[in-house]
């Protein structure tokens, strides 16, 4: 869902580090396949489950479930967006032994929970096995960590990326809408000549950059029996880094801190022409740049290789079952219903713009409607195509809070011209490796 904010992440790093150290004695640090737990009904007449989520309006969806399933009653607990405090609360609750049965966790945070033994493997549950085929392939890789028959969560939503652009400005200036990154750079020059900027390179929030790297087939982490491999400075990522470094050096992109008033204003005042962002970005622009209503359009994101089209992903979350629950079977039932039934997915899309992770979900009637702000374009078509083009191999690490904090520190220097994107990544990789070592997470040299 919402992109990680480096600020709030940094705020919680201290506490996260403390709790990680306290819990990392657990032996499940590597990718050793763990037996999926026996998944049998508890046999109790009425099971009460607690479920923590920060999705606005999820109470109504859960109320529907409770009506239809008198035997499995779910109680919703709420909190702030994951990185703004809820993850920290999960860690605290796991330590105290009173974690909820189910919780919302974004893909990039799942590995942190798994490393600490916080997640129940519900891959052995019939209902989960049956549901696997319904999900977009790469989302299943995110929750199974590539293990056969495992599932540490059920995918909920995704953030496939596409190109939001000002159709009116491109047309007036006679510039073609770029389909490749080369064309994007050329368009950037022409737009600069018109006095605009092609886009804003987010320096406070590195998840957009991660999405670009993901599109190019990068993976920042991988793990096997011998430990974790940290590959933030892999070739695919560096290619992306150098591309943006070049645009930054030629002053073709803006560097406003994302999600601020200045940033909104840059879009609202037509200074910035495009934004390569995730499906939820449709709302962000609509809200931040109300004066430009009707002038935006959405196209697939620019490609490195048009022969093998790919898209990045930015955000997305899953519903995990926490270890220590007495009711893995019932929890799995609910999590699967919440993320596969048309009823639930429609309600979620309506109330909180949750973009479903199932292939069927992409064809929901609510996602077939034109959007007025985008000139009545059915923008969801573009994202549905993108969702299926996201590469599967991208893996998040177990200490993402720290990784984000250290890379985004570097990115802030990039904005002032005192550092480069590549340097920020190199420093981020070093910091990540040392954090992992300090938490006794095995790292391969």
């Amino acid at each position, binding site marked *: 869902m*919402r992109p990680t904010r480096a600020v709030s992440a940094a705020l919680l790093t201290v506490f996260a580090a403390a709790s990680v150290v306290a819990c990392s004695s657990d032996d499940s640090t590597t990718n050793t396949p763990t037996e999926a737990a026996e998944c049998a009904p508890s046999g109790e007449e009425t099971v009460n489950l607690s479920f923590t989520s920060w999705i*606005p309006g999820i109470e109504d969806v859960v109320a529907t479930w409770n009506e239809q399933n008198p035997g499995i009653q779910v109680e919703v607990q709420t909190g702030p*967006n994951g990185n703004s405090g809820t993850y920290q609360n999960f860690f*605290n609750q796991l330590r105290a032994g*009173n974690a909820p049965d189910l919780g919302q966790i974004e893909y990039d945070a799942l590995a942190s929970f798994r490393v600490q033994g916080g997640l129940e493997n519900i891959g052995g549950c019939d209902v989960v096995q049956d549901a696997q085929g319904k999900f977009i392939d790469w989302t299943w890789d995110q929750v199974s960590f590539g293990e056969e028959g495992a599932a540490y969560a059920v995918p909920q939503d995704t953030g496939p990326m596409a190109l939001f652009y000002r159709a009116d400005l491109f047309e007036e200036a006679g510039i073609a809408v770029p389909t490749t990154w080369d064309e994007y750079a050329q368009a950037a020059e022409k737009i600069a000549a018109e006095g605009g900027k092609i886009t804003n390179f987010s320096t406070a929030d590195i998840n957009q950059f991660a999405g670009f790297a993901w599109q190019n087939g990068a993976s920042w982490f991988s793990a096997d029996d011998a430990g974790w491999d940290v590959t933030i400075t892999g070739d695919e990522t560096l290619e992306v880094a150098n591309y943006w470094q070049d645009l930054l050096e030629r002053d073709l992109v803006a560097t406003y801190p994302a999600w601020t*008033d200045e940033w909104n204003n840059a879009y609202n005042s037509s200074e910035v022409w495009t934004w390569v962002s995730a499906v939820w970005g449709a709302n962000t622009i609509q*809200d*931040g740049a*109300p004066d430009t209503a009707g002038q935006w359009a959405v196209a697939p994101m620019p490609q490195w290789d048009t022969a093998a089209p790919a898209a990045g992903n930015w955000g997305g979350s899953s519903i995990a079952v926490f270890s220590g629950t007495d009711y893995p079977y019932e929890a799995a039932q609910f999590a699967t219903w919440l993320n596969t039934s048309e009823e639930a997915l429609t309600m979620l899309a309506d109330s909180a713009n949750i973009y479903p992770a199932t292939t069927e979900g992409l064809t929901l009637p609510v996602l077939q409607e034109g959007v007025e702000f985008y000139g009545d374009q059915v923008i969801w078509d573009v994202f549905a195509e993108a969702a299926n083009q996201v590469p599967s191999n991208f893996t998040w690490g177990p200490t993402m809070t720290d990784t984000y904090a250290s890379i985004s520190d570097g990115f802030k220097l990039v904005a002032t011209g005192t550092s480069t994107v590549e340097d920020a990544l190199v420093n981020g990789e070093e910091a990540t490796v040392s954090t992992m070592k300090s938490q006794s997470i095995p790292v391969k040299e």
Partner: protein
Amino acid sequence: MSQTTAPTRRRARQPHQPAATGPRASLLSQVPAMGVMLIATLTFLTPIWWLFVASTKNRSDLVNTNGLWFADWNLSSNVSALLEYRDGVYLQWLLNSAAYTIGGALIGTLLAAMCGYALAKYQFRGREVLFNVVLGGVLVPLTTLALPLFLMFSLVNLTNTFWSVFLPSLVSPFGVYLSRIFAAASVPDEVLEAARLDGSNEVRTFFTVSIRLMFPALVTISLFQFVAIWNNFFLPLIMLRDEAIMPVTLGLYNWNSQISQIPELRGYVLTGALLSVIPLILMFSLLQRFWKNGLGAGAIK
């Protein structure tokens, strides 16, 4: 006692002041002082002014117009939209905040007063050690205590309850410290002895005599408590999951973290933040007379 003598003394001193240098010297020192004050006032008031202006705007004006000046006046519709959103959960949060704060301030002040009074007026072994431990408590930020508190409350199954936030709000080391100073200064031993001679027991003396003498100090302490609890954020963040018992600070924070999914929340957060500072402003203006006195009383003696 001193009130009767003070005016005479002031009158007596006046003729000795050199009339010529007085005003000029004060004018010279006044200008920079006023300048600094003015800048400080602006610095503190600007965000509140911005918040007020922002709360009067609709969503589109919020982005389009100058942040420090008004556009179309939408305050009342913003407020009613806020109060209607999610069945008025915002009002519930305000009530919760009031319950945590008023209860915490009253009981917390009473506990602090009793403790400080005992430390000031009774001789017992370990008194100074006890006082130093309490004083050490002033130095420990509430934030660092939140996690241990969470683990303790987990043991007794009290997390995510009203009590998990209310009970820790009742203790105020700083209040104990102030109470001791004020009790030592404003409750004369002679009065206590007189009360004892009259046959009053210690508890009764405290509630009928001492507490009245300490009253200005207690207003100050309860005001500090009030502000501290009203603004306390980290403890509820860690303890509470149930929207129905959240204070307004945590509720607004939750909304603020969901803005990217539900953009209209931005307006609700702004209006909600404006409404939530009103009780603080009211509290300060109503009690201003008392707490000024309270602070002064300690300083003079």
